[in-house]
């Protein structure tokens, strides 16, 4: 299930539903990304999507993950709009029979979401407002998967 929403979500409630739906999975890995304070300098993160295109890209990454690993369930929830420090941005959870499949697929999907997903990101902080470009470090993470 893929949800892109412009209002706050509760990651714990989402994980509870996912865990219930995958109670026979054996292994569930989740990742929660929250807005970081960056030593107090960030006040707001704003994310913009291209409705349709952004979701299709995530769906494609989920399909690739399902092809590469044996999964019993995947959930991706991604916020858009304006978020304050500490607010959830993204939740990815993967369920599998085997632990490695759950870990690797969750890691893979997060790399996609943090580097290639169709989002534009604007940060407002003590030094004003700026659009954020991808970090070289994120590209390196994503490159890891080409050699698997």
């Amino acid at each position, binding site marked *: 299930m893929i949800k892109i929403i412009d209002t706050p979500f509760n990651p714990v409630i989402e994980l509870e539903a996912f865990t219930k739906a995958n109670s026979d999975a054996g292994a569930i890995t989740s990742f929660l990304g929250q807005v970081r304070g960056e030593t107090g300098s960030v006040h707001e993160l704003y994310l*913009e999507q*291209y409705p349709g295109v952004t979701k299709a890209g995530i769906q494609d990454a989920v399909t690739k993950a399902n092809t590469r690993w044996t999964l019993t369930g995947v959930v991706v929830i991604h916020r858009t709009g304006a978020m304050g420090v500490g607010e959830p941005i993204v939740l990815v959870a993967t369920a599998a029979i085997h632990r490695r499949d759950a870990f690797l697929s969750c890691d893979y999907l997060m790399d996609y*979401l943090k580097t290639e*997903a*169709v*989002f*534009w*990101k604007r940060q407002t902080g003590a030094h004003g407002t700026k659009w954020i470009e991808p970090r070289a470090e994120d590209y390196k993470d994503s490159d890891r998967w080409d050699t698997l």
Partner: protein
Amino acid sequence: MIKILYFGRLHESAGRRAETMALPEGVTTISALKHWLNTAHELDGALDDPSVKTMINQALVHADIPLNGDEEIGFLPPVGGG
């Protein structure tokens, strides 16, 4: 009517997120439309920047495609993930 979408920093440059219009007179291809919009919105050539991708009906285009006048056209600065 064509629908034009400006994403990320482009919506600030263009002063709008979206606009709907008939194809301007004499504009029949995507490259001609980009040229027209660059001028009309004083974008300083931002739409021609090689880092800006163009989608027609939500599919990336690289060549100079003819337009019917009923497309959704998106201009996408580099995406950085969420």
